[in-house]
């Protein structure tokens, strides 16, 4: 592997690991706060899986570069997850008793489904990576992710096909989600090398089109709008601008809050051994 390819692959692994870590953390915030008990359990469980996947990708990154496997020793702008996953959706605990402030269940569902479908396409591309360690490790992740994707689909069907209240919420949240969901496909530095050397054989643009192709039948069945239309042969004309930045470390205020929280114990004593 050339140094340029190794650098690009390291960046790609970091992006995947950060996506999974941050979304996993956000999911666990629904513990005790979801509309029904089964969803407290489901979101906690999905969150736990995602953090486990993050751990795996950080370990692969460590194998690749020998860099410290401790992901916490980074500034907020050194994380390269997409901003989509950092938005808080669960209500904040309030000692005054109004625990529902900021709660956004419909957005959580929309994000989970759109993200998991993206993740499924990303993983299936990495299954063909020319770096065997990555291709082999991805098999395990795919087996677990299947449960997440079907869970998201069940809720999408439920909200889209149920009463008008759920349907309206769903449509509004999709509208709000598109610029951020499309930014999942923000190209990473060195993408050409990764594709040319088949380390990560599918580029961001192609991945986005595959994702839209998979969303299309689901959304058509529910008469839900997509943020674009099929263009020439197999291509898509996307009509919504992606809110990019996350992959290059430019994040939203929600990330600042989350970073503070998830690294607070670590920052008390970075040298401590746990």
């Amino acid at each position: 592997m050339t140094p340029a390819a190794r650098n690009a692959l390291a960046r790609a692994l970091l992006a995947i690991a950060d996506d999974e870590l941050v979304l996993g953390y956000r999911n666990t915030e629904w513990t005790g706060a979801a509309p029904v008990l089964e969803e407290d359990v489901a979101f906690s469980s999905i969150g736990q899986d995602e953090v486990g996947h993050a751990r795996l990708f950080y370990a692969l990154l460590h194998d690749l570069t020998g860099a410290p496997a401790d992901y916490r020793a980074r500034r907020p702008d050194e994380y390269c997850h997409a901003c989509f996953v950092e938005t808080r959706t669960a209500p904040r605990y309030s000692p005054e008793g109004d625990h529902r402030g900021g709660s956004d269940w419909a957005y959580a569902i929309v994000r989970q489904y759109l993200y998991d479908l993206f993740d499924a396409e990303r993983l299936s591309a990495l299954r063909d990576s020319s770096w065997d360690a990555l291709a082999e490790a991805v098999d395990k992740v795919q087996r677990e992710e299947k449960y997440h994707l079907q869970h998201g689909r069940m809720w999408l069907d439920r909200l889209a096909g149920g009463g008008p209240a759920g349907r309206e919420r769903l449509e509004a949240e999709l509208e709000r989600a598109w610029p951020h969901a499309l930014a999942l496909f923000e190209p990473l530095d060195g993408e050409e090398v990764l594709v040319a050397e088949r380390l990560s054989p599918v580029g961001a643009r192609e991945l986005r089109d595959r994702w839209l192709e998979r969303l299309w039948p689901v959304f058509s069945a529910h008469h839900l709008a997509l943020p674009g239309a099929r263009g020439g042969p197999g291509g898509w004309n996307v009509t919504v601008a992606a809110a990019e930045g996350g992959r290059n470390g430019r994040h939203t205020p929600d990330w600042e809050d989350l970073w503070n929280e998830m690294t607070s114990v670590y920052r008390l004593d970075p040298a401590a051994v746990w």
Partner: protein
Amino acid sequence: MERDDERLPARSGGRVVSAGGRPDPPAARADNERAAWVILREIADPELPTLSLVDLGMIRRVRPDGDALCVELMPTFLGCPALAMMESMIEQRLAVLGRVRVEIVRDEAWTTDRITPEGRDKLHAAGFAPPPRGEIADVASLAGTPCPYCNSTDTTLHSAFGPTPCRAVHYCRACRQPFEQFKPV
């Protein structure tokens, strides 16, 4: 399914002694590996204590690694919080055999098909429905899983997510009991 521990050489009866009267290193190593499997069969899964790590098919191989013994451990679920605990249990319990190293396997996925027939029986006896064999295409296909209490198939999948990442929750309409299943991966 081929079991890794069955790949070990059969016990030859008595320790092989070399001309110098000292144990022959390869034979001593094989003895050590056999002893390791015996101990590993006794180490309980922290979340399903009636099953051992061997019952769950989590041990891929035990092999010599320099002057140490390397145990290859396959995580059931990647986010399993008990993994670090299992690593330290293996290190502690096998310490009687000398230096031990646990290696987490990443180049091969653990699947529920690795649970041994004894492991499946123990799951059932503990009130867990064993997973169906093979990979499932659709989570909904888990509906109708036989109830571990009354064997009825008049059951529904209540949630694909349960108290731990590896369990799904079902409900039996015949005996009106909720029950859990080790979910297939």
